[in-house]
């Protein structure tokens, strides 16, 4: 190939290659720097959490006791709370975001597209504490008086899952926290879904329509497969936010170190526990146990997100197989 180039370009090739190399090293440095920071955080957390892990051993992961007086700590209740609230957030958040994104890209009339899109972006910019206050003062009372009795009467009588929907009507509960989280992650997921839906080539959709596909078939068979990676990326971003959200959850979850079968009972998450107790924790073991919680949140986030990645890779492989 080089032989075909004019002589002048060959002469200049060396400095250019050096420039390229320099650029490559710089970017490599930044990329590795991120990994380094990540490793440093993990190491610092593990180092400071070690006294707690050493003192409690495996018991720390399976005990839900949290007693600052007797200095007995266990992480089960905040870990379960973190996962359950995030799960509720995803159960509500994903379908609603999906609907919003589809409406904006595929169905909305042009004059409505922009206002709805802007509103979604504005929702993402609202500080989480505002969602928390809204949850406590507006959502919780309404939920207590109108929605929870309905859910207890209908879902609460079902076998197996019934106990999950029974409980005192106070509106401050794991379920409320999950629901507030859902509202908070919707703008993130919806905005990303909208962006990826918009990059589906027009010709692709038009050919499907030309073959007589209905709108639903176009969405399900053309748009979604084309944008799957982006959609899952958006969901992961929302999930990441739900796992780590602190202030809004602290407002509505009730901050009790208890494990209940019922979603209508107060609970806690790892980040709400940290927000509540870190400033006031005294003594080595108490502080170390809180840092251990932080370490576990880190690990949980990594596991959950890697699992999502893995799922994505499997999806891609099976799809590739079908194509071939």
């Amino acid at each position, binding site marked *: 190939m080089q032989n075909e180039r004019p002589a002048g370009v060959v002469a200049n090739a060396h400095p250019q290659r050096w420039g390229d190399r320099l650029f490559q090293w710089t970017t490599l440095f930044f990329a590795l720097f991120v990994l380094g920071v990540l490793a440093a955080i993990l190491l610092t957390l593990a180092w400071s959490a070690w006294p707690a892990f050493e003192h409690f051993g495996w018991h720390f992961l399976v005990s839900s006791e949290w007693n*600052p007086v007797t200095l007995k700590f266990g992480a089960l209740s905040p870990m379960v709370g973190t996962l359950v609230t995030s799960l509720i957030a995803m159960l509500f958040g994903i379908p609603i975001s999906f609907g919003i994104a589809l409406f904006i890209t595929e169905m909305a009339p042009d004059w409505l597209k922009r206002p709805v899109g802007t509103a979604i972006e504005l929702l993402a910019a609202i500080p989480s504490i505002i969602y928390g206050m809204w949850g406590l003062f507006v959502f919780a009372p309404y939920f207590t008086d109108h929605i929870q009795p309905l859910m207890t009467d209908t879902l609460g009588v079902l076998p197996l899952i019934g106990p999950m929907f029974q409980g005192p009507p106070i509106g401050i509960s794991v379920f409320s926290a999950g629901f507030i989280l859902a509202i908070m992650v919707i703008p993130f997921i919806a905005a990303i879904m909208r962006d990826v839906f918009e990059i589906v080539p027009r010709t692709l959709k038009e050919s499907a329509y030309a073959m007589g596909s209905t709108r639903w078939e176009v969405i399900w068979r053309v748009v979604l497969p084309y944008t799957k990676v982006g959609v899952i990326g958006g969901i992961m971003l929302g999930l990441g936010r739900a796992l780590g959200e602190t202030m809004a959850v602290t407002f509505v979850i009730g901050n009790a*170190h208890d494990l209940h079968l019922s979603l209508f009972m107060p609970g806690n998450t790892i980040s709400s526990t940290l927000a509540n107790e870190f400033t006031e924790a005294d003594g080595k073991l108490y502080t170390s146990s809180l840092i251990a919680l932080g370490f576990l949140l880190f690990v949980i986030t990594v596991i959950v997100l890697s699992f999502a990645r893995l799922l994505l890779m499997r999806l891609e492989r099976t799809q590739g197989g079908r194509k071939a």
Partner: protein
Amino acid sequence: MLKSFSKGLVVGVALMGAGLAQAEVKQINGAGATFPYPVYSQWADAYHKATGVEFNYQAIGSGGGIKQIKAKTVDFGASDAPLKAEELEKHGLMQFPMIMGGVVPVVNIKGLHVGHLRLDGELLADIFMGKIKHWDDARIKAMNPGLELPHRAITVVHRSDGSGTTFIFTNYLTKVSKSWADKVGNNKSVDWPAGVGGKGNQGVANYVNRINGSIGYVEYAYALQNKMNYVRLKNRDGEYVSPTAENFQAAAAGADWRHAPGYYMVLTDQPGAKSWPITGASFILVYKQAEKPAVTKAVLKFFDWSYHHGQAMAEKLDYVPMPEKVVKMVEATWAADIKGSDGAAVWTSSDAE
């Protein structure tokens, strides 16, 4: 023109000279308990106007105050939970009581008038342990003959963060209920057997105002500000008393500070017919061996000024000022215990107001 210029110059130079002549400490930094924050900030404002010295106080909570002074990031720490004498000794700290106030159980029961519900310590402990589940429980009814109580579930509201308020409250419950002492105990945060947790006094007030059938505990000032329905409590002398500044004062009056090593004193369950049983003092922590004697002296000067000039401001905010004899004792302790690196006393009796 020239005249006014030179006049300005003279005034400027005079001001600079005055600034240099005064103590070089212009700013005092402290952190800790949220309970005394309103009165400390009032004092700081008045003191700044009177002397030009700025007093910064970060209300980060009692535990935070203890942590910060141990880490030496502040000039003094503040805590509603006193440190035990041994712990003070271990860290070379001294503490003194600065102001007193009360913790108040508050309820939200629709249709119930303010101050009409009566409870005693044991009943309060059993409610907070989740043993009594409804407001029309036979034991509550027996204590409140003639009061209409609904068959409503009791929702307990407690602090979710560690706090001096919780320390004072659980200290009281530990004194009056054996099962509370055995199962839960006394600390800035405890393993609550029941209920939901709100962050800060305001968080508890919010939850109680929100949840029909709830009971919580807050500093008196928050109960007043939020117009909350407080509970009358049976005190050690068997009288039902309301939370008022007068009754906090009554609880504080009999306190034997002289025989409290390191001023370790929790004013809960005190004798006296009028004593409000959940009263507590808020404390200031400083180092005995002052690394910067001038700063420590400025801290002491501020609190000395507040002891003598701040009573009216404190009372207006429903706190109880320290009695004169306690102030005298504290100032004697300052003179005896707080030394600079050269071994000279930081505070002398001639510094007092």
